[in-house]
């Protein structure tokens, strides 16, 4: 069964537009990771959030973790074609047992057209 739900599944935006991707868990998240994947490539680490209410930014990408630590959002400001790819959220500790392994959402496919 799917541990993390991502929405939307796909997103097509015009260059310059802002967008938001969501990642939701039914259980408390102990560590939430955002990755980006381009076709044929591995996952590129973007950001990690651990504390409720935490927010981190890198260039035009901002990630937030809600106070209850069950939902995270990834916001891209003034999108560019270079932002295109699949965005994946991953989390550890959902089942509170095995350390190390991450559980992933199915990803959000982002297309940015000029």
């Amino acid at each position, binding site marked *: 069964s799917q541990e993390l739900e991502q929405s939307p599944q796909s997103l097509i935006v015009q260059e310059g537009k802002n967008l938001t991707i969501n990642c939701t868990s039914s259980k408390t998240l102990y560590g939430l990771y955002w990755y980006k994947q381009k076709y044929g490539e591995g996952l590129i680490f973007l950001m*990690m959030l651990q504390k409720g209410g935490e927010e981190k930014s890198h260039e035009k990408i901002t990630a937030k973790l809600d106070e209850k630590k069950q939902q995270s959002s990834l916001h891209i400001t003034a999108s560019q074609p270079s932002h295109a790819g699949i965005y*994946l959220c991953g989390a550890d500790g959902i089942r509170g047992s095995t350390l190390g392994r991450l559980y992933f959402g*199915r990803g959000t496919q982002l297309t940015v057209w000029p």
Partner: protein
Amino acid sequence: GAGVSQSPSNKVTEKGKDVELRCDPISGHTALYWYRQRLGQGLEFLIYFQGNSAPDKSGLPSDRFSAERTGESVSTLTIQRTQQEDSAVYLCASSRRETQYFGPGTRLLVL
């Protein structure tokens, strides 16, 4: 420094053959992970090595799958008697602390 590397990049094999996939983690990373990504699906955890501890094999889908790691270096994932449903991208990651850094993956196609 160098990232996680995987070889081969692509592998095409016939059903029933054995395949071996290799992962070179980032130097100094004590933890190493294997995941599988099948078309249209999310990443599935396969196995996790942490230092000299017994590996967490709970994600391996069948006894045809096995993995080894020598110390804190190279790992190999072996799939015996491959089946068409084994076709996927196999991703390796390593970490020193919480964050996992991924390699480019090996695309396996079983005909």
